[in-house]
């Protein structure tokens, strides 16, 4: 807090100094001072974070594959081709039949299953469902968590205690168990099961964002600039939206990115144990489950969906890390 105050005073001093240095109609300056907006500063810092940028590019490619790949690829995830149980054409196997010509043969880059369904098409479709669930979960839980956290931190009192006890309560249960118990009824025999899964996960995952927002609000509401705004006659709504919410944008965005990874991983367990996305629809978790049952005979069915999940989660986590550094460089800097 002391650092923040010092920064405020410094900024104030600097702006005063600037005002004195450039009297209207004064001598021509040799340099110009361009005001940098907060957003610009954050973006500049983020774009200097090489790992985060590389991850962002990979992540966008993965999302593009998940959402549009199914329309471009020449097989669909349900289409049974004559080539059943085909290895990926470039699979490195050492029984003497491998030759370089196979590398250019891209008919089934990830092989097929026992019905001849193309694994790549299935992974694309599974990734689409998993990404939809993850993005919707992250979006919804962020909205719920931010609203409840803002209310709790700004108004305090009984509503704060109520919301905080609620977040305590959610820590008591294993996420997969409670989500599975609620979700199964909605997912079995339904083609829109993924929406229910996303809503249920969002209703269970808002607590961490809520705590973060509440914490920031609790400390900021005592600051002078809030008193000043109130003295000028600003309404609660204006104070919350104009003066307080901009301060939590950073932590909220970082947390939302991490929620994307958490939601994908949770969906995987949920679908794996049979309480999440159900056949004939598919998700990466369901594909891993089917692949695991065939891992001794057709291991490629098991490897590829998992590698896709790892790529998504890894890049999401790197992007989240880059955003954290961009929004709050002080957090990772260590005092000498």
């Amino acid at each position, binding site marked *: 807090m002391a650092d923040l105050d010092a920064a405020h005073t410094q900024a104030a001093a600097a702006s005063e100094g600037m005002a004195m240095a450039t009297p209207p109609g004064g001598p021509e300056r040799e340099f110009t001072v361009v005001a940098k907006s907060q957003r610009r500063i954050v973006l500049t810092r983020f774009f200097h974070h090489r790992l985060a940028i590389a991850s962002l590019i990979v992540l966008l490619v993965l999302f593009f594959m998940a959402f549009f790949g199914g329309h471009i690829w020449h097989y669909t995830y349900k289409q049974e081709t004559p080539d059943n149980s085909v290895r990926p054409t470039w699979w490195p196997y050492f029984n003497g039949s491998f030759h370089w010509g196979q590398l250019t043969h891209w008919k089934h880059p990830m092989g097929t299953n026992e019905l001849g369904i193309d694994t790549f098409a299935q992974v694309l479709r599974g990734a689409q469902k998993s990404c939809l669930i993850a993005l919707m979960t992250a979006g919804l839980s962020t909205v719920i968590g931010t609203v409840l956290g803002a209310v709790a931190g700004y108004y305090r009192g009984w509503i704060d205690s109520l919301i905080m006890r609620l977040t305590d309560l959610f820590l008591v249960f294993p996420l997969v168990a409670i989500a599975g118990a609620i979700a199964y009824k909605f997912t079995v025999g339904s083609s829109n099961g993924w929406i229910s899964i996303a809503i249920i996960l969002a209703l269970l995952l808002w607590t961490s964002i809520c705590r973060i927002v509440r914490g920031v609000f609790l400390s900021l509401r005592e600051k002078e600039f809030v008193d000043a705004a109130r003295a000028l006659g600003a309404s609660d709504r204006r104070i919350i939206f104009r003066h307080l919410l901009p301060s939590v944008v950073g932590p909220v965005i970082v947390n939302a990115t991490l929620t994307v990874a958490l939601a994908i*991983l949770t969906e995987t*367990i949920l679908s794996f144990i049979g309480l999440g996305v159900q056949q004939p629809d598919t998700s990466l978790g369901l594909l891993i489950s089917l692949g695991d049952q065939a891992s001794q005979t057709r291991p490629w069915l098991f490897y590829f969906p998992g590698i896709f999940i*790892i790529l998504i989660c890894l890049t999401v986590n790197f992007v989240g890390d880059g955003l954290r550094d961009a929004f709050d460089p002080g957090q990772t800097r*260590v005092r000498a």
Partner: protein
Amino acid sequence: MDVARFVLRRVLVSIPVLIVASFLVFVIAVNMGNPLANLLLNPKTPKSTILAQRARLHLDDNVFQRYGIWISHFVRGDFGTTIGGSQVRAELFQALGVTLRMIALAALLSVVIGILLGVVSAVRQYSFIDYSTTAFGFLFFSIPVVWLAGLLKIIGIKINQAVHHTYFFTLGDQTPGLTGGFFSNMGNILGHLYLPVITLTLIQIASWSRYQRASMLDVLNSDYVRLARAKGISPTRVLFRHSLRNALIPTVTIVAIDLAAFFSGAIGTETVFGWRGMGLELVNAVKRVDVNLLLGWLMITAVIVILFNLLADIIYGVLDPRIR
């Protein structure tokens, strides 16, 4: 005296949480679906049977009455019967014994290795070991637990085939039909434990070592540690007495909170290795709309998690006298 009062206060605080949790669990369980769906599928089921079943399961009472009936039995240790007619309590405690083997061992290993790695990478910041721990953390933070379990299963089978000896059992929690007690079958049970425990441990170390590293760095860069060093206290004493003791406090909380997450991971791992533990009980309870079984399941895990949070609070109090 002071500690006793502190513990008592924490116990009293967790009772209302448990009561509210039990009601929430009940609402979820009774809304799972119709427990008589299978019975209704058969058009020849006589109406009298259905009515009798409805009365037996109290389906015609409202949710508060049903909750009252259930909780009054539950607090006396009667968990009711499953759809199949067996005792929920006996079944769940048997499954819990199986699952706790995996969870306890994995938690112990993760705490020890996680704290060790975190402390070493904080003390040797930006060294090779720090970077490799970070890379390891990021990787295992992004791996689905069920995929890692499946991968280790494939590797385990490969190793078994290569050495012509079954070191790693990949199916079940022990070989079926074993006679004798726990200790005479220890070798067999351990053989089944290796892979699931390694799975859970690898995943959990990833996050706990990060927390430990962050809190250790915080402490190492604090003024009082610098003062301790300046006073000429030996580096070992500064590390263990002044730094580690304080750096452990945030980790204790995280470990207790993550216990619920441990159960989530264990459910997936058990399914991969075909264990007959809590994971299977949960899936059965949900798929068969077994209200009593699900209620028992969620309440047992809730009590365990609350007890561990209580324990964490007490350890907290021991590590940091101000909190008492």
